[in-house]
């Protein structure tokens, strides 16, 4: 234990929390948007994966980071359109469609990777680009905070910015209002001439774009290549974070950070020689505990209100 504390309170640990959180944050923001419009996006995992691949391929062929990221985003949007078409137009069950999308991506990416890089596992033979890390002028000179907050990948900052932007978008813009209305009471939206399906399409597209950014971060920031199934369940964890954060951008941000913290913790805990399985469990147990504690609190609040009044 005495080894652990200095590690947790080190700046590099705090720094790593942000780094680990980034892809989950993107995906959980993506989950918020689609959820608010009343469409569950189980396909986030697959969308991220595909976007990660397309980012690598396009940046390798154009030698442009920007085009790479844009392609990743475009891939996210395109796949979510497919999801939307099947679930909204053809009325396939949305969960099933999401699962199918994941299945599709998991195979499709490897196949494409093989076409592009003659490799079925990893894209190292492609000279793909990486989104650079930047240090932020003023912040980087603050002693401790600077080390934690500065020097991250640009996409990490984008993800933090997105928390704020999504909040504004959902609660202050017309489209955001419509998305919330559609998700909560589609009939009401319909009755004032809002096309429910169109709004859900748009929500899914935005959701896809965010997941695309998450994918781009995985392969063009976190690491510098694409590898088979590299998202490794982060899309599902994002769904958990979104539920834990009760669908609000800020709450979800917190939940994602908690998960990131637990994950980072499990990475440093291993040196303590606790059985590896227990350490690997930490992030998931934390999420369950977080969810339970949140739910208990919510419950107690209700009870307390009553008791105080009686």
């Amino acid at each position: 234990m005495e080894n652990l504390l200095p590690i947790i309170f080190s700046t590099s640990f705090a720094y790593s929390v942000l780094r680990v959180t980034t892809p989950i944050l993107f995906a959980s923001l993506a989950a918020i948007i689609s959820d608010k419009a009343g469409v569950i996006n189980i396909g986030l995992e697959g969308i991220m994966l595909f976007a990660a691949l397309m980012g690598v391929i396009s940046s390798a062929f154009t030698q442009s980071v920007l085009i790479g990221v844009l392609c990743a985003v475009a891939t996210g949007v395109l796949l979510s359109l497919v999801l939307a078409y099947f679930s909204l137009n053809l009325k396939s069950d949305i969960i099933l469609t999401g699962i199918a999308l994941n299945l599709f991506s998991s195979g499709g990416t490897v196949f494409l990777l093989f076409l592009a890089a003659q490799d079925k596992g990893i894209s190292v033979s492609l000279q793909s680009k990486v989104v650079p890390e930047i240090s932020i002028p003023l912040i980087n000179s603050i002693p401790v905070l600077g080390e934690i907050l500065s020097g991250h990948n640009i996409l990490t900052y984008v993800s933090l910015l997105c928390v704020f932007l999504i909040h504004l978008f959902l609660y202050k813009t017309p489209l955001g209002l419509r998305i919330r209305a559609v998700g909560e009471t589609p009939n009401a939206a319909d009755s004032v001439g809002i096309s429910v399906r169109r709004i859900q399409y748009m929500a899914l597209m935005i959701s896809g774009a965010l997941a695309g950014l998450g994918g781009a971060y995985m392969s063009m920031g976190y690491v510098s290549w694409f590898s088979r199934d590299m998202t490794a369940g982060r899309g599902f964890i994002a769904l958990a974070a979104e539920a834990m954060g009760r669908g609000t951008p800020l709450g979800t941000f917190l939940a994602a950070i908690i998960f990131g913290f637990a994950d980072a913790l499990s990475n440093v805990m291993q040196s303590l020689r606790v059985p590896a399985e227990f350490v690997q469990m930490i992030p998931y147990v934390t999420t369950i505990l977080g969810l339970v504690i949140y739910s208990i609190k919510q419950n107690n609040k209700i009870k307390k209100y009553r008791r105080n009044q009686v």
Partner: protein
Amino acid sequence: MGNEILLMKNITKVYPNGIVANKDVNFSVNEGEIHALMGENGAGKSTLMKMLFGLETPEEGEIFINGKAIKIDSPTTAIKNGIGMVHQHFMLVPSLTIAENMVLGIEPRKNGFIDFKKAVAITEEISKKYNLIVDPEAKIEDLPVGMKQKVEILKALLRGAEILILDEPTAVLTPQETKELFEELVTLKEKGHTIIFISHKLKEIKEICDRITILRGGRSVGVHHVKDVTQEEISRLMVGRDVVLKIDKTPAKPKEIVLKVKEVNHIDVMGKNILNKISFFVREGEIVGIAGVEGNGQRELIELITGLDQYDEGSIVICDKEIRDLTIKQIRDLGISHISEDRMTYGVAEFASIEENIISDRFDNKDLNNKGLLKIRKIQSLVKQLIDDYKVKCDNGQQPVKMLSGGNIQKVVVAREFSSSPKIIIANQPTRGIDVGAIEFIYEKLIQLRDEGVGVLLISSDLNEVMELSDRLLVMYGGEVVASFEDSTKVTEEELGMYMLGIKKQVFEEKRRVENE
């Protein structure tokens, strides 16, 4: 009276499940009139209006507005053509404010963001113009129904509705609110709007409508000037036979107390005092009515009595048993039956069959299952009997309840609750939104059960109903019983209204005398 503003010609609508909801209907409305649309449950009124508003598309027929044929394929087109609709079930987003609901879809913008100030201003402006006062910044979920109704009307007006469709707007309103609504409708009419008004309440039709179109079985069976027809004639046209809504009952012969509520308090999640030391009782063989504006604690009171929620203070005794720690099942086993006001939430599982809906309170009984195995044949014959007894219009017991019309769904609920050999029936808005034929039937059944010695607690916002049906009458206001009348026939509607709005309150002695005899 103006010229024909709307004509729906030879409209036929078949739902995907094959139900022919409208067949060759012709429907014509003149400018500036209030036109009533009447018919039994399932006659096709809502369907006809949904087509006018673009929520459904007709298989055949044409719609003319001001003589011009138009194709209405979505609410947007309808709104563009000056049609507004206030739906039978509210179309509001509960978590949003009034102003946000008002501008939904036509949001005022500033730099790409919603201009919330402007939204509030717009709401205030139109609310002043039509004298429908609302608080723009209140959240919908906190509003009483009357207020929601106003918001719905304003919403339609804001979108420039010339023709306003109101689908059963009064079903959930108090007399005062209804009166207010009617005044508002008259103002609208004076301002040149045309109103299509759907209601099951003949009195209301007589009061404000100019003409009436009657539907039966999906077809139009005639258009009349309201002043030319009597209520009885309308009923006959709708149902195809004479309806007697006059309640014929002998004086009650009450016996033992079956329900006793004593000093019960209840506080909601937000910490608001919903019930305030409320006390009363119900005896075998009597109908006790509770009148009151909705939202004065009636719903919560019933939730406590039926075990849907738990009370902290006071006591509720059913058949000599305190129910504080009992489960709903145990309470039901004491002999309580409950017709919920919200039939789609509590009354039925809409995707389940009629059979499944009817056995929900008794599937656990020995005669319907054998060590856990359901006795299918027994259940089928039981349900068949009930369908016959309660005249539920359906193909068979396996039909999902969702396929039935509102009135028939209510009959399913009533059939279940009345046939469980109850000692006490809690009937909350038992006739809401159902047609006269069905109402008549439910009244008869209620009185019959009373005469067999069942205690009935009747809660209704329909004053006529509580006054006619009850033997004793209580009035609830602000979570308290503010008045109690030994003989409900001796009260006037006006007097009741005063108590319901909290203007008058009986002194405690007077109340106790009645309560603790």
